[in-house]
């Protein structure tokens, strides 16, 4: 796993603008049902250290579209807010 240890700004995935990239640092979904979703997100490829890019977000606080590991995922906004990434400078 290649993780940059430089503590750069850790932001929620939703803070990234269209076209920006980030590296997943953690997923904070809480316990119980939440941990199932954490597992699900990881099964879809969102593991710590992986690079994701935000393609677009649906209007009125709708879901966001991201690309990860060559696949295209739609994530509900509430879910995306709990995924934290290190923002990459372009």
């Amino acid at each position, binding site marked *: 796993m290649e993780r940059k240890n430089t503590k750069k700004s850790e932001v929620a995935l939703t803070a990234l603008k269209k076209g920006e990239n980030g590296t997943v640092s953690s997923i904070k979904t809480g316990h119980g049902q939440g941990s199932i979703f954490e597992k699900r997100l990881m*099964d879809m490829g969102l593991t710590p250290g992986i690079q994701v890019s935000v393609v677009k977000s649906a209007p009125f606080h*709708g879901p966001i579209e991201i690309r990860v590991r060559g696949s295209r995922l739609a994530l509900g906004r509430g879910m995306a807010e709990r995924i934290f990434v290190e923002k990459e400078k372009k």
Partner: protein
Amino acid sequence: MKKKLLIALAGNANVGKSVIFNYLTGLHQHIGNWPGKTVERAEGTLQFKGYTIDIIDLPGIYSLSTYSLEELVSRKYIAVERPDMVINVVDASVLERNLFFTLQLMELETPMVIALNQIDMAKGKGIQIDIDSLEQLLGVPVIPTVAIKGVGIDKLLEKAIETIEKGPAKHGQVMYGEEVEEKIGVLVEKMKNVQFMYPPRYAAIKLLEGDEDIEREIERLSPEIIPLAKKLAGEIAKLHGHGCSTVITSERYEAAGCIARGAQKLVPPIKPTLAEKLHNFTTHKITGYLMLAFSLLLIFSSIFAFGDFTSGLLSTLLYGLEPFFASVFGTGIVGTLVWGGVMEGIIAGVTIVLPYIIPFYIILYFLENSGYLSRIAFLMDNVMHKIGLHGKAFIPMMLGFGCNVPACLGCRIMETQRERLLAAFVTTLVPCAATTVIILGLVGKFLGIQWALALYLFNLLIIFAIGRLAFRVVPGESTALIMEMHDYRWPHMKTILKQTWFRVAEFIKIAFPLIIVGSFVLKLAEVSGVLDPLAGVLSPVTVVWLGLPAITGITLIFGVLRKELSLVMLGALLGTTNFALVLTPVQMIVFTLVAMLYIPCIATIGVLIKDFGWKKSLFITVFEITFAVLVGGIVFRLLTLFM
């Protein structure tokens, strides 16, 4: 000599698994449910090289954990039934994510062959895969296929048979980091003497991941292993700063990524592909919604136009049989029961299924297989969140406008049982084609289209209000949208037709007996003269509270069979279809409103019982009747003030 083989198809959703399944099994297939589960089970047989091969199409899943019923069912199937061969269908254009699943299959130590599907689409995206190196890296035979054109399927089958005949060859395994491997070793050693359905290494990995299902199973066999596994998992978590399950998933994905990178060459095309452009257009914040509105309008208007025409044609045709029946069974009680009870029930069913349900399913599967449904879910996600559901729930709701029965069955796409129930509940409030007949045929025709639209709007408001309420009342957390949007592609028509056929068969199986029996019972009640007293008994509700003619009590009972029957019956019992002569405008609105909301029809109730059990179905039914009567009475009083 007859030799039997069992082959399972496994892989991610939307990778062309069902196309391969259809190609292999043709018409020799059977679709049912896994015992006691609402998960679809597709089986088929084929003859090949002297073998009789049973093929089972496992549900499309992304992992073999216990996130969903589908995953659990698949895992258990492979571990317990031990198929002779698992054909893992892999989408070549999303290799890394697909291999993550492949690696988990390999951990189950099942004999397998990989169908590297959609290589043509991968090429279009500039992905070139070296088959030989992929085979070498995985230690599993790989056959490239383009399922929708039938390319490579025969070779795939030959390879599968050849691999079975060669006998069990051990394929590779993911090697995790040193610390993880060490803990796996400890657990495997501990489980050496435990007779368990899963391979020891697999069980060890899953225990470290904290898999509750495996924990339950092991608890029964050898409970002392669990605390040990928890302790070891804790050590890994401490070392890595992430939960043990996160560490293992990450490392497994790293391995998948490594293999993918080793076997594929990326030459991204300079110009965006057509699929890419279409994706951007259909998910754009303006054009996406315009396109959605346009598609829905087109779909519904064409289905209604087609359905209306065909339905009329069919009923004229079938009602033409009436004199024939009269001549055979007479016009006495027997004749009335046979024609009015049984035959009219059948006609009711037929005139819904052929004209409305079939085209509806064809279009639905076309949209699903091409990829558009997931875009609709993406666009509608935040609207659906207002009632505590996510974007995928829009799809059954949309179906509900056609018919509530397939719509409620469609709620199986939701991930949790709670969401399935909530979505189904909301869906039963959606005005279906039959309800539309009442709305347009009564209010629309006699009061004007603006009143009909107002009723639709009112219905939507109610759906939102009730949906929000139910979402708060039903215990559990709301879930979020996590959905793949695969590349657009031209769907495989034969697969669509087959899926449609199985759905229609399912509908017939559930709905027809109910409609026919219901129709018979009502006719019997009519013949025996129970209906008039019944109308009298109901009159405190219909006459006093709702301000309707007493006769509507009877027609609303008939509406349980099929909602538009309540209007047809009203015409018959009042002796005219010019309702303006016999009903006031307020009565028309109240009647329509009650008919719209009061009960899911008998077939819908049947589906609810099948998926959610008696208690919940009864609750929904009673709730909706009470609610409809309540709303109807209030609206009656309010409208009387103004009109």
